[in-house]
């Protein structure tokens, strides 16, 4: 069954042993951390300090703090040095979300200067303990899941017999 493997295939397989950094460079959360001298973690969630979606993107920097940074001169993305300099221009009294706490203090506290503080957010990956929805009682089982399981079982039995 095994035949000669061409060099192109070997190259392709060898590439599996090397993988560099992938996808976008999410540098802005780390700039926020560096300027505020914090280590808040959860960089995907921190995108929401400025963007309306954790995927970021040019057209989604619509949060109050982003509008303030834009007013101070942050007019394009992918520029960590510009973000640093604009953050330095944020005054101590600026309160973008008008919650009574200055933006700088909220950033130092790993809070959210654009509104409600960000919770941990979604966790990715399979986890046996979390894979199924947490249910406190029998009455809270998801009916869609039950119906799907029953329907699939019935279909398997039906077509299994037909064979």
């Amino acid at each position, binding site marked *: 069954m095994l035949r000669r493997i061409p060099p192109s295939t070997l190259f392709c397989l060898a590439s599996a042993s090397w993988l560099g950094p*992938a996808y976008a460079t*999410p540098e802005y959360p780390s700039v926020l951390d560096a300027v505020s001298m914090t280590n808040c973690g959860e960089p995907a969630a921190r995108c929401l300090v400025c963007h309306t979606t954790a995927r970021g993107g040019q057209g989604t920097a*619509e949060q109050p703090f982003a509008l303030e940074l834009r007013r101070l001169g942050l007019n394009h993305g992918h520029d960590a040095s510009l973000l640093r300099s604009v953050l330095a221009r944020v005054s101590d009294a600026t309160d973008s979300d008008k919650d009574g706490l200055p933006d700088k203090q909220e950033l130092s506290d790993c809070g959210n200067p654009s509104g409600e503080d960000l919770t941990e957010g979604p966790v990715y990956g399979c986890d046996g303990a979390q894979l199924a929805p947490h249910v406190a009682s029998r009455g809270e089982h998801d009916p869609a899941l039950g119906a799907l399981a029953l329907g699939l079982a019935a279909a398997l039995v039906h077509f299994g017999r037909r064979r």
Partner: protein
Amino acid sequence: MPRLPFLRGACWLWILAVISLSSGRADAYAWMIKHGFSKCGSCHTDPAGGETLTPFGRFQSQHLLSMGGADLEEQNERSRFLFGAIGEPTDVSLGGSYRHMLLYSAGVPGVPAEWRQFPMQLDVYGSGRIGQFVIGMSLGVAKGIEGNANVRAAEINKEPGDGFIVLSRSHYLGLWLQHDTLLRVGRLNLPFGVRIPEHTLWARESTRTDRESDQQHGASLTYSGGRWRIDAMLVLGNFQLNPDKYRERGYATTIEYLLAPTLAVGASSLLTHSQVDSLTRVKNSIRYANGALLRWGATQKLSLLAELDMLKEGGRNIGTTGFVQTDYEAWQGVHLLLTGEVLDQGLLENSDVLPQRGAGAPRYGAWIGIDWFPIEHLELRVDGVMHQDDVFQGQAQLHLYL
């Protein structure tokens, strides 16, 4: 007593499941309609297109996709899995994709241009069939994606930082109810819009229906008979995303009708609800999109794909997205691509934000590219991407597919 072929098939499926460092995303070239292949299931084991190729699809890939393939009178070994190094058993199809991306972002005054390169995809995939039952799966790896909300949705291990993660974009069990009707449960591509490889196209990103990592778990019914192709999915949520409050429940469907052998029109609809939107954190979020699509093979060299969607996200007013893509195959294997796209994701509700391009007002973009298939299993693609209010971006992509 089970028959020997059954055992052999089961053995291969087991091997597939264990090593199944296979079947990732692969390619769906919706423009193949210009060759009269309106039904995706002719070339793909997924009747809605994408992922693993059928043996017939492998031959067409060599015969119609690659340079010089038109001269072939019959399939040769090089079109097969791993260039024919390993023979696939009957009813088992394997594949894989390696994509490497080189990105150029033009500079702006005071900011130099930037070059970056990274592996974009390293997946293996496959599917197998035993009688009326079918199983399919993809496995891949990625690295250094901390902070990235895209690829993580397909993650199956719990690496939180910048280490390796293992991905499974799709995995399913299916049952052919009839020769043209397939019922599947598992993690599946959402049936919405034109299934294209450009996962960052606004129509795919804003409706969250790309094949990069937007798949969800659920049950789907696919009918592909006569002039109709109907794909309907009950969405139960992405079970690789925790906790449950972030999972979306709802439906996604696409109905396509073949007006002529090379002209198809269709409609798509999607509606989901989540307790908390995983990307925007909007609570009790209802998200929907409805749209129309068109695939037209004008000539053997020229095809046109188009989609226009109305979309509504929790916390935003109604928006619009869409694209038109023309593909001119100057010589076999050399495609000149021109794409125009538009996005208005809707103005934020309850906010003082004024309309801006992309949110409350249309934002336009254009792609111009060359896609070259010099030999079997190899694709080289170069694109220039221009979006309003953004710098020019150049993309060069090497794609090796097994």
